[in-house]
């Protein structure tokens, strides 16, 4: 047995069994080893993509900590990813907060000077 592990190019990033388990979550599918290998590789690529893009957003906002909001923005910038991921992301805390602000102890008949009311908030005419 050669001591080649340091230079052996094939090494797992994700545990093979877990990849298969996740693939089978929704339905009882059969998958050959090559296919689950490719899924594992492509998932690795996708994760790196998400990390890279999220970090870019954080940097744009001059933040050192990557947060869900940065992840969300990164997702929104990539069409194929929006298609399956955007709805799965947690609802942004920020938008809940601004809704709460709009509804709090303000005279609703007077328009807010600095922040427009959300369009769905119909002010009494």
């Amino acid at each position: 047995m050669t001591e080649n592990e340091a230079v052996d190019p094939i090494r797992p990033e994700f545990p093979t069994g877990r990849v298969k388990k996740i693939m089978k979550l929704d339905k009882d599918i059969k998958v050959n080893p090559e296919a689950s290998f490719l899924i594992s590789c492509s998932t690795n690529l996708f994760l790196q993509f998400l990390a890279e893009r999220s970090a870019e957003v954080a940097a744009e906002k001059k933040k050192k900590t990557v947060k869900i909001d940065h992840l969300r923005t990164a997702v929104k910038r990539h069409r194929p990813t929006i298609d399956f991921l955007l709805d799965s992301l947690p609802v942004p805390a920020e938008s809940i907060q601004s809704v709460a602000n709009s509804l709090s102890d303000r005279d609703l008949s007077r328009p807010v000077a600095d922040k427009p009311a959300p369009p769905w908030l119909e002010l009494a005419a």
Partner: protein
Amino acid sequence: MLPPCTVREQDQYMPIANVIRIMRRILPTHAKISDDAKETIQECVSEYISFITGEANERCQREQRKTITAEDVLWAMGKLGFDDYVEPLTVFLNRYRENENERTSLRGEPILKRGMDYGSSMRMAPPYVPAGFHVGHHQGIFDGTNAMGGYFRDGSNGNAGGGSSSSHASLTNNFDPFGLYK
């Protein structure tokens, strides 16, 4: 038996340690990730797997086959907008196949690897993607020197060694029993 569920059923996600490790290679050294972002990304990873698998499976069923193949996966990638991945995945697949051939024909016994989780004991594991492997999403750029120590755009063989395009691509650059191919 599964231990009692605490908050999250971890079996449906990739181990968070793996996820974080891969992210750390990409992120700037000083960068942190919030805990909820880590968990959310962990979920995103599983969503992605389900997404691709679902599409590959549908194709499989349409063609009245029972088992998802590599070609189904590659096709799904292209269809779902991840066509940037098809080229590197093809390289990885060729390399995987070479390794399989090499392993079964030349070595004749399973390779023991430390700390690897095999679905079955004979399985080769997914490739190591070196640090700094960047995918030029939608920039259409695939720098061949990044991936797997270099690969050839024409995908004719996955030999990431010095540059041999010998048809005996099954010999990796660190295993050369014949000493003929340099």
